[in-house]
């Protein structure tokens, strides 16, 4: 079996590698669709303290210095830890609705 054959798109058991092998890292795993609630930021309350960025267990919050946090909704699982930890209550968890 070659690297090119690790397509991740298998029709039969014979095509599979011996054990699940991925040739991409976990950022390729889009887990955002698991969530029920998504974080929404109120920029008027946010003090850019980075606490939400530090606490996010999925590294799904991007933050540059002196910028507001950006939620990566393709990887956020909606756990709400960021909203819980925010000292200014600037993050609200909002029910996601189908587009």
């Amino acid at each position, binding site marked *: *079996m*070659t*690297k090119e054959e690790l397509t991740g798109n*298998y029709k*039969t*058991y014979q095509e*599979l*590698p*011996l*054990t*699940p*092998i*991925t*040739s*991409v*890292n*976990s950022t390729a795993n889009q887990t955002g669709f698991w969530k029920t609630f998504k974080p929404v930021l109120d920029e008027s309350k946010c003090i850019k303290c980075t606490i939400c960025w530090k606490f996010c267990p999925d590294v799904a919050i991007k933050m540059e210095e002196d910028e507001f946090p950006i939620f990566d909704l393709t990887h956020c699982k909606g756990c709400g830890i960021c909203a819980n930890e925010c000292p200014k209550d600037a993050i609200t968890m909002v029910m996601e609705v189908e587009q």
Partner: protein
Amino acid sequence: MKMVMTGNYASAYGSKVCRAEVVSAYPITPQTSVVEKIASLVASGEMDAQFVKVESEHSAMATLIAASLTGARTYTATSSHGLLLMHELLIWAAGARTPIVMSNVCRANGPPWSVWADHHDAMAQRDTGWMQVFCEGNQEVIDSIIMSYKLAEREDIRLPAMINEDAFILSHTVEPVDVPDMEEVDAFLPSYNPRFKLDTDEPYGFGSLVMPEMYMEFRFKINEAMEAARQGWRDVEKDFEKHFGRNHGGMIEFYQCEDADAVLLIAGSVASTAKDVVDKLRSEGKKVGLARMRVYRPFPVEEIRKLANMTNIIGICDRSYTFGHWGPMAQEVRGALYGQTDIPILKNYIMGLGGKDITPEILEKIFLKTLGLTEGLDTEIEWIGVKGHGGW
């Protein structure tokens, strides 16, 4: 080179002559001298391996799974509660298809606390996906390690293997052992080089999540490999014999079984005692035989059916148990013979738990009792030597 050594040293030298590259282990009685010996071989430079000290057997197996995924040949040894603590990772090792070879010094599980011979630790790991061999003597210990690497690393097998040696009876008893030269072993056992490895230059992730539509397929592949390993054991032993000039009797060793009226099926070191008893009873005109269960996983179904055609009564002597049912070997033998015609009478004996001595005298009584079952079973299962029970 012929040396006089314990089963534990035979295990240690087995890992050395096979050029195990990563060894990780945690000490436990009666396995300790395996890893002590390896540690000293590594320290003196006689063995070129990394010895990784860990805080538990669970960590030892985790270390070896990762090491094996890098393409290293790996080895560990444990016993009893150490093996039980590994249970989760035994399943992981098989699922990750890492060809780890491990010696297990078969010891009873507590409580009551015990350090003596018993097969319950190993047989309780039946469903983990590990191949399992039970050894009769110390030569077989080292030879089985060499054979196991060859079979475990085959691309169509790629499963871990557990070599079982009885506590103290083998682990701490010396015998002459022919330790093959490393060059001889090299000629038999090619280096291990899997296509996909843990490698920072070409990174892969192993053992990741699969959705329900593909999980069963991976399990099916393991089963297919284990089924292939059944013929694999027969082939690897023939191959071994070509290189080293000896064998250990196949998946089941038949001793005086061909015309026997009754046969005892036994795993481990007690088979050796039982062979002497067979010789004595044969000299008295009693046609008895001994079948030794050498490979327990994959289960030697064809050999069991062959045995059933050789004899009328089989006494299955388990040095283990499953509470509330027969012994583990008895269940497997009954399953393998179900639906066959002219099945022998199958009697199950539970014996030798926690190192309870199995003497020639007791084995002779069991042989004679089994020979006398020509009219059918009295009871399906009997525990031998329990004080206040059964009259043994």
